[in-house]
């Protein structure tokens, strides 16, 4: 079985794909945020990923770790709100795992994913079930690890992870928010889908789509 290898170019391409997906979903994410937040999640992320896209060419001579760290820093300094420091931390932590690397493989990716998630948890002090982006990330990571242990190909494992992430997003509709702006609504937040979980799902799906093309 061919192991997955992502080069600097792959990483750059994935990031710019994410930027496009965020742009396409800007209004959708903002509408979700309007229902239980302050109607800016799509606007925030789009502002951030536009800045990232602009800066990406400057990072291409660096290693993958440095690229991701820079992406995180750009997000932190352009997104603001809750999602800025959280996604920023996510990318910076992923970067710290990949520091010095010009290519990354299955194990690296899992480790990076893991480090990113714990960064989010530390920064935001939220847990799965609090109706946040964690509800889309943690199940995806768990399924990814399990499927790889079961011997699945990375793209197959990732596709299962995407499904888990999607279920996580769906699950956020059923629960009340306990962190972030939506928590002020208490039980009134039930019935609404979390915007941050949705954006996290979209990003994971974008990675999966790219990997899928690479591995098929």
């Amino acid at each position, binding site marked *: 079985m061919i192991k997955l290898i992502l080069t600097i170019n792959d990483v750059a391409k994935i990031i710019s794909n994410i930027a496009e997906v965020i742009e396409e979903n800007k209004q959708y994410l*903002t509408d979700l945020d*309007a*229902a*239980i*937040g*302050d*109607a*800016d999640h799509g*606007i*925030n992320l789009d*502002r951030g990923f536009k800045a990232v896209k602009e800066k990406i060419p400057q990072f291409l001579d660096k290693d993958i770790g440095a690229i991701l760290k820079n992406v995180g820093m750009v997000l*932190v*300094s*352009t*997104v*603001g*709100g*809750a*999602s*800025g*420091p*959280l996604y920023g931390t996510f990318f910076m932590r992923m970067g710290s795992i990949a520091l010095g690397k010009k290519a990354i493989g299955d194990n690296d990716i899992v480790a990076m994913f893991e480090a990113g998630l714990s960064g989010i948890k530390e*920064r*935001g002090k939220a847990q799965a079930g609090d109706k946040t982006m964690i509800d889309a990330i943690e199940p995806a990571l768990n399924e990814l690890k399990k499927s790889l242990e079961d011997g699945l190909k990375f793209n197959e494992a990732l596709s299962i992870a995407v499904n888990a992430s999607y279920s996580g997003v769906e699950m956020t509709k059923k629960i009340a928010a*306990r*962190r*972030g*702006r939506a*928590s*002020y*609504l*208490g039980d*009134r937040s039930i019935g609404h889908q979390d915007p941050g979980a949705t954006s996290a799902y979209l990003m994971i799906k974008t990675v999966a789509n790219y990997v899928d093309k690479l591995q098929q």
Partner: protein
Amino acid sequence: MKKLINNPDEVVKEMISGLLYAYPSYLRKLDNVDVVVRKASPIEGKVGLVSGGGSGHEPAHAGYVGTGMLDAACCGAIFTSPTPDQVYEAIKAVDGGKGVLLIIKNYTGDVMNFEMAKEMAEMDGIKVSEVIVNDDVAVENSTYTQGRRGIAGTIFVHKIAGAKAEEGAELEEVKEVAERVINNLRSMGMAFTPCTVPAAGKPSFTLEENEIEIGIGIHGEPGTHREKIKGAKEIVAELMDRIVSDLPYEKDDEVALMINGLGSTPLSELFIANKEANEYLMGKNINVYKTYVGEYMTSLEMSGFSISLLKLDDELKSLLDASADTPAFRQFK
């Protein structure tokens, strides 16, 4: 969407530019970041006060930068917390050697971004403390949640901590008095109509012609519940019941009262609410020491208002009475 703007993406930049044209003797802007500081910053031997948050709450916070209040305001995108580098630049610009106090409203985003900046500034050897304002009683305060939000009562923190810092107090003392304000401060708001974030282009929620939203935040976030519209006296009583019982404020307490317009409620109506608020408090034998009526922390063009109550002691009274001279808050002894 009908707005007096040029481009939804340039609102904050252009607003700051118009602010500087209006108040050149009070304010200057830091290079490359949306941070407004006192003209004379840093002020040697004075604790620096930094606040800020998303824009769209004007005159908060840049309007409170000046003598006796803030040293810097970080202006985020509309309704979006400023980023750590903005806050970091603000801290560096106003540190006069005595350290800097961050006045943060309790929102996940604000707290995370300000704290990241604090860590950055501390690595530079600057003394930084923070207080987190959480005056909104509409939101339940429990360890399982985010805690209460910070809303218009924050202006009292700016005013009183600002007066303390202006006296030359130490960072710990300024922080202590700010925390005393926060501990004695409660607020709650309501809305008649929503507001529209320029970049979103449409209202963040909708209300029927006979519906009001109680417990609204200042970002177009929905409140705690909806009701049929009712008279000013009943609305004030509903908010006051929640506020007064929360601390609780008691007979013979002396309080400062703020009736804060959220954007498009006419001043005449805010005065009617003020009449009702004063009479409500009289009925409970709570003494109003000082009243503020106006638009202190808005939510774009939302129609509605909030009430804030601050229980005073002798020191808080004298700090509240101290002179202040800022674009949006002027008061002279």
